[in-house]
């Protein structure tokens, strides 16, 4: 417990020092400090500021990685959302996915609570619902069930959000951090080139073999890139 508290204090200090470096324009040192602060403590603000520092040094991929982590922890923060979109718009490869407005709206609502919040909220709700169900069984009062119905709906929403977030993690999202990487048709140099991807492109990791990773871009196209050209987001 004391160690944890020390860790918190230490991380906060590192975070504030890194902010000072950032303001002084020394983004590389700021990056080191933020990374160090993250050793003990996962916090959306640190990830966000780290993303900014990476963006300032021109590393879109790393910036997007950290913005996504920050978004994962604090999905309702407007700054994080803005900068994630900004960094995405800034990258070389423009990937246009035809956006269906209904899907967009659903995605926005489902992502309005973080995975952690969805898990805690649904758990608490399950206990509350069980108490009300028990109350109904014992006291035979219909009023208990009237309370339960909306709670069940909220719980289902939490489960949906939980599932969506968990799927995102399970898909093993990666981001390209090399300035340019060539995706090949197989794990080796001799395979045919499929597509060239640039810093900041987000993809899902399908398989890793022989120092190569099979990535799949949004839209389905994909190929094998060198392992060090990409980094996993989570």
């Amino acid at each position, binding site marked *: 417990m004391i160690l944890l508290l020390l860790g918190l204090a230490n991380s906060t200090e590192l975070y504030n020092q890194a902010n000072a470096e950032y303001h002084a324009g020394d983004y590389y040192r700021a990056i080191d400090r933020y990374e160090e602060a993250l050793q003990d403590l996962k916090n959306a603000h640190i990830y966000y500021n780290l993303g900014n520092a990476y963006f300032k040094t021109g590393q879109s991929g790393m910036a997007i990685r950290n913005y996504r982590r920050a978004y994962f922890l604090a999905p309702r923060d407007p700054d994080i959302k803005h900068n994630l979109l*900004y960094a995405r718009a800034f990258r070389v490869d423009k990937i246009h996915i035809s956006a269906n407005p209904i899907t967009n709206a659903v995605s926005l609502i489902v992502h309005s609570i973080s995975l952690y919040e969805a898990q805690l909220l649904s758990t608490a709700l399950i206990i509350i619902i069980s108490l009300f*169900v*028990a109350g109904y069984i014992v006291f035979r009062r219909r009023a208990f069930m009237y309370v339960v119905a909306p709670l069940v709906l909220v719980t289902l929403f939490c489960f949906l959000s939980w599932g969506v977030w968990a799927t995102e993690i399970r898909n093993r999202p990666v981001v390209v951090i090399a300035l340019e990487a060539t995706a090949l048709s197989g794990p080796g140099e001799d395979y045919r080139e499929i597509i060239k991807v640039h810093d900041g492109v987000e993809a899902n990791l399908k398989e890793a073999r022989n120092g190569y990773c099979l990535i799949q871009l949004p839209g389905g196209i994909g190929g094998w890139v060198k392992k060090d050209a990409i980094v996993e987001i989570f």
Partner: protein
Amino acid sequence: MLRKIGSVLPALMIPIFAASLNFTASVNRSEIGINEALILTLTVQGENIGNVPAPQIPDLPDFTTGGRSSSQSTNIQLINGKLTQQQSISFIYTLYPKTTGTKTIGACKLSFKGETYQTQPIEINVVKGSAPPAPAPRIDQTSKEEIKDELKLIATVDRTSVYVGEQINVEFSIYTRIDASYGNLEKPSFNGFWVEPIFDAQQIKYETAAHEGKQYSKFLLKKTALFPIQDGQLPITPMKITASVALRPTSFFDFGRTENVTLSSNLIRINVRPLPEDGQPGEFCGGVGKFTASAKLDQTTSNAAEPVNLRLRISGAGNVKMIQKPDMPTIPGVRILDPEVKEQTQFTGNQIQGYKEFLFPIVPQVDGEHVIPAIRIAYFDPANGRYVMLATERLKFVATQTAIASPIVASSTMKKIGSDINHIKPDRVRLSGRKFTADWIISGAYILAVLTVAAAFIYRRHADRLFTDRAYARKVRSSRITRKRIREAEQALKKDNLGEFYSALARGLEGYIGDRFNLDTGALTKEQIADFLEARGIRSDLITDLIRIIGHCEQSRFSRDTQGADPHRIMQQAEQLIREI
């Protein structure tokens, strides 16, 4: 005899490629003397022929080729609304015949934009001596000074003393007695004047006019209305134009020359008087001339603070464009916005007439009838040398529901000029950690939830049986009642009240059996109880013990014979029995 073959007549010039280009050849004379020169002119006409190459002339064994020159002219025509630009380039060759007789100038060729054009051959009759010369108009060599006498540029004004803002018309005309062409017009400066052009000559149109006792051909070059905007002696600087006068050749070998003369108009000074300070009303809006004013509202009702337009029109003759926006009276309950200004002028005779219109949007701010009082505007009448006051009619309109309108916001002129990432989050005193996913401990909550519901079910079932199942209810309650009686027995034993002790113990045991098996033990004999218990499969030694203890209790209760048995031991045996049955 003149042979007309290969004539200079344009009718015989056959265009080779009529659509885009004409290439023709002509000579100045079809019959020349052996000592004379022949001018061969090759003319190219068409659109966009600026970079046409020089044509090839055929071998001319009968002629010596002299000099070559070229000239160019452009003719812009508007035919049926279509603008065509005809260029014409002439290549002029001087040829000297070698021998007499009928000579032929062969076809000349021109290659342009991948097409080849040819002229018709021309036959020339060369005779001995001189051919009869063409009649040439005689004109004397003229000096520059003499030309200036014959050719004048004169500026005239209709008045030289005016008020500020009063119209003056100035005319620039050329008076000429000789033929000339004009170019390089240098405009005069009208510093200190507001300028309204009336007329600018597009083409020369002569009329006859007298100047200093001589008859001249006159044409008007420029006519402008001027409105002085400051007082004092204002000069109208001279206008300049270059006249080219073609001098006729003095001899046959003189091809004639052109004398260029710069003509300059006279300087004119205008005496501009200031408007009188005395009696200048505050409502004076800068108008000098003769004006009328009118005001109109485009609607008489306004709902939801919709603006009503006040149309204030000042019309008349004078410096219409110099009229300033009149001061609007302050009207309580309305807001008068800046007006939209329209003006229109035209020349009627030599006078500028027109109107200037101010369209004031008026936004009511409170409900009710609003009155726009007469708007007073003053102008200066130079004819009478005094100020004249105009007043418009009083106007009314009714405003309703002004409150529901949102306040008018001026349209923003903000413009986004760039974008960047949002700035970093600020320093913190304490950061709290977050987990990407919750611990597995939370699954314990689900077990807890299931247990809660299960417990509720079990309790509910139990409660229901207490109501409906008498045997179950007695059974549930038996242990409690029995324990109570045993406790009574124990207390009696402590007080050494043995009668009470045995009585309580017996009741406890019998009650326990009755509740446990739902029997009415009070109505049964010991043997009947034993049979019942045996039928229920209770161990026979327990039944024997039970019967013995009950028997002992009854015996001791009624006989008061306390010998032969330790009450404490009996107590223990009874408790053991209850546990085991």
